[in-house]
């Protein structure tokens, strides 16, 4: 069941659901969601140094590769980040969230931005129960014109679903990679256990051939 505005406010009052800063409740709390604002940090993709992710390298080097794959840009208040057509960038919310164990969040775009061709997230819109931190999301300009994006604008919305209480909260989950951070964070796919096996296999193969 998706939480209504009254239920969202009740959860906020109880202090179990935390969304901060919540500057303008009247404008930000919709009938079944909270509008979220764009933060000041963007992470754009740099392809000039990479041909591919080389998974035959040790994890530390892959981490370095993924760091070099993107660069952080900080945009000052009242300055804009121009997202050109077909550009892809990671951005973060201005808000910090604490989601209780009995709620899950769902990130969606706002119709206002959808009409310009702006996609708020590519695939990762689900927020686990027990998640704490700022949200990193994937902005993609599908339109034909460049879009000026300013920190602090309402960029998307988060709705909440009530679920049965879970046993393992996101922050306590083994292998949780993105909790309790505030800015944008690069992908850490190589820390997935499957990739642990693949990377080990690749390194062994490489040393066997050599």
């Amino acid at each position, binding site marked *: 069941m998706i939480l209504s505005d009254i239920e969202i406010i009740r959860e*906020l009052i109880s202090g179990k659901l935390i969304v901060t800063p919540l500057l303008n409740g009247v404008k930000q709390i919709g009938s079944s969601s909270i509008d979220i604002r764009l933060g*000041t940090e963007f992470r754009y993709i740099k392809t000039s140094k990479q041909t591919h992710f080389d998974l035959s390298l040790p994890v530390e080097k892959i981490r370095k590769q993924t760091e070099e794959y993107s660069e952080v840009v900080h945009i000052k*208040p009242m300055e804009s980040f121009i997202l050109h057509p077909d550009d892809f960038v990671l951005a973060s919310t201005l808000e*910090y969230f604490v989601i209780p164990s009995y709620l899950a969040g769902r990130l969606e775009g706002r119709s206002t931005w959808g009409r310009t061709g702006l996609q708020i997230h590519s695939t990762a819109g689900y927020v686990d129960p027990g998640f704490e931190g700022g949200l990193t999301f994937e902005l993609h300009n599908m339109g034909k014109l460049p879009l000026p994006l300013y920190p602090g604008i309402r960029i998307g919305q988060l709705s909440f679903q009530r679920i049965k209480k879970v046993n393992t909260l996101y922050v306590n989950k083994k292998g949780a990679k993105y909790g309790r951070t505030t800015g944008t964070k690069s992908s850490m796919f190589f820390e997935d256990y499957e990739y642990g096996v693949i990377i080990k296999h690749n390194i062994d193969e490489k040393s066997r051939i050599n």
Partner: protein
Amino acid sequence: MNNLVEKYIIIEIFEKLYRLKSFISSNKSMLKDAGKQITLNVFEIALNKILVELETPIQLIKNNNLSDIERESLNRRLSTTLNLFKDFHSLLKFIHSDWVRPETYTFSNGIIRSLPKEYANTHINIILIDEYSFKENNLINKFKNVFRKSRLLIENSSIKYPTIFLPKLEISNPLNWTILAHEIGHINEQEIKKITEDPTILPPQTTINDQGILKKWAEEIFCDIFATNLLGPAYFSSLVSYSLCTGSLAWNSFHSQYHPSNMLRIRFLNEYIERNGFTLKCKSKMIGEEDLSTFFFNMIEDIDDINLGMQRDPNVPKIRIRKLTHFLDRLRELTNVYKMQIKYKPENKILELNKKLIAGIPIGAIRENSSKIISESLSKENLDLELSKKLISERGTTLWEILNAGWVYKISYIIPKCLKIIFEDNDNCLYDKLPRIGDLYDLCDDRILKSIEASELLQLIEKTEP
């Protein structure tokens, strides 16, 4: 608590070592050149040596009943380590570094907005330096000196180009950026002129040499008051911590031609804080319940026993105490007349913000209304959704609130945890303890930096949104 000041210094050294390590590592991750990597490795090895130096003082401090000889030995060792750390910092000139963080400008813009209107559009340049000290300089004056030497004239410009110097170590440490507020205070030339050129600050029969020195000191104390008015006990706490770590509390009589002794400044400020009611309750097992400034002031009360090895400036004539009493009394009166706008709000919510920080939540905004009031607006008989939405909204916090909550968090949460890690954990070596301490500071830095940015943004949005 026994040996509190020594324990505090040890924790501060740990913090600084971790920050240096982070600074070096951040360069390392960007470099591909093997030669540069090796240079950075040398720094890392040297840092580890300083860390090892701490082992003996820590063992000594664990003994609560130190004899006089042991205490002297402890202080000598601490002094050596502090000097080592300062020398180490100066060698950072061998490492290329980035510009300061964008948040530093957000912070300094917040301070500049508090200056009188004529300075509101001043743009300052902040750069990182190798020396472990905070400074302010005016580029135009520097150029004037250069051209004067070449007998060229430079036009008298009313535009100022102040440059503030930030030690590399403090690049990500917003709690110590409060000292930048003091440096920004130097921009306020008109107010400074009013005070330093007031003939009554000089005691009768002051020599010309002493007059020059006292005028410079008056400017420093004015900037201390400026920073305290804006940031309250947070500035005081940084000043005491900085003084402890640079060894500049060594003797009461340590002055330079440009600065009165830090002990004199601290005593003056402590009284100023008390007089203006800038109180902040701080609670922890380590200190019980104590006011933040009082905690620092009490900690350094017996500092005379600690000789942290600073050398007295031989060029400064010894100004007699009688003159200083007159000087300080007069400054007190003058700063009351030229009182700058005080941002302190007695209804601030520092303790509430501190609780948020302990939960790891940034503090760029805070809700003014209590949960009880909002709940009432949602009761069945009186359901007013629009009102509830209004009541649940937050306002952007001020720099005053963010930095003071940060200092309360440091003293009441981080320091006790560090004490436990350093002095009570006997199972791990110092190398293993350093990253654990670093994690505490990393989280604090991140949340405070995020809060400074969010607060600035929210204040802009608040102005524009109906």
